[in-house]
């Protein structure tokens, strides 16, 4: 093999290795971004804050059965979702598992809330409930509720205690966000951001 061919081969191998290294580095940065992203549910400044009483305490479920927020017996995890929001769908199994686990510690009801009551939207809700095997007794359609909590982005969650007082709230995009609500509640702060800031 001539010197030229040899150097060419070596150079190619180095180029490929370098490209791979650059790609690996990029991935690492991506993972890093994911890790440093605030793990707590993201607070919004609008609407009722943690410590305020829930603006609405009586709701009517999808099957017309009544729901009470803060009935003195159990706390409520209120999750605002929409059949057209992909993140909400990926969050549903997580909500169920977190809800079940938390229910072992203290009584908890998980309520899914959405809005839109036109014929087409109702069809979407029914399909949503069937596809994801949701409980009609725990599914609320109420524009008023969303307005009262000033929900701007989905999926949005609020944790309401037995007495009907909001304990934590925020945008939840992942299991970590959702768990941070319970965490914040147990630590007695409105959000993990507040907790970290107080250090």
């Amino acid at each position: 093999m001539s010197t030229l061919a040899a150097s060419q081969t070596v150079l190619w191998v180095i180029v490929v290795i370098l490209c791979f290294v650059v790609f690996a580095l990029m991935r690492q940065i991506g993972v890093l971004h994911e890790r440093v992203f605030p793990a707590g549910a993201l607070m919004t400044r609008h609407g009722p804050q943690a410590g305020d009483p829930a603006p609405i305490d009586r709701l009517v479920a999808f099957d017309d059965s009544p729901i009470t927020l803060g009935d003195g017996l159990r706390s409520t995890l209120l999750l605002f979702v929409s059949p057209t929001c992909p993140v909400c769908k990926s969050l549903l199994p997580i909500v169920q598992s977190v809800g079940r686990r938390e229910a072992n510690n203290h009584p908890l009801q998980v309520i899914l809330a959405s809005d839109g009551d036109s014929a087409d939207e109702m069809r979407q809700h029914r399909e949503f409930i069937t596809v994801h095997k949701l409980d009609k007794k725990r599914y609320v359609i109420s524009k008023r509720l969303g307005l009262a909590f000033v929900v701007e982005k989905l999926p949005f969650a609020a944790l309401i205690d037995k007495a009907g007082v909001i304990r934590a709230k925020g945008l939840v995009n992942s299991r970590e966000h959702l768990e941070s609500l319970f965490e914040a509640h147990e630590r007695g702060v409105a959000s993990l951001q507040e907790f970290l800031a107080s250090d």
Partner: protein
Amino acid sequence: MSAAITISFVLRFLLVSIFLRAALHKISHYREFSAQLAAYQLLPRPLLSAFALFLILLEGFLALSLFIGGWVYSSFIAAALLIVYATAMALNLVRGNDDLDCGCSGPAGSPSGFSSGETQTISWTLVVRNCILVIFALATAIPIPFLSHHLSIQELGTIALASIAVIFIYSSIEQAIVNQQRSRRYLAVRSSGNPGMPL
């Protein structure tokens, strides 16, 4: 062997890798993909799942036919498909519906998958990216000078190594776009406390 032949081969293999990855990704996340397609709000609901399947098959077919080569129309179909994607993104960006999962593929998604609820959102960067890919696709349609001989082992080696390098570089750029979006979102959270998390 001319540089034109190498470039033509390399671009073709780059497109093969893009379409193959896109198709595999869509198959493995079929439900999320259907939801993402719905979120684009461009198709009537009854057509969604059929169209999702059609896109997967088309991408798979393009990957195969571009790999085998020799059928010039696959380059044109690839360009057309990329234009359709770019148009769909541009339409939603113009509508202000920019909190949308791209539903693209591969490394563009979050490193830990859909579970974290963070994927690439549509942006003008991605529209530009698609336009560049359209140019690549059309470039592969240019007939390469008549091959007077079979490719030698050195020529094949150059094509293979250059393809691998280019695929890695492309993936790195994709990952860089995701990272940039993520860090921008992170900064938005830090500075305002009222983030623009994707719906």
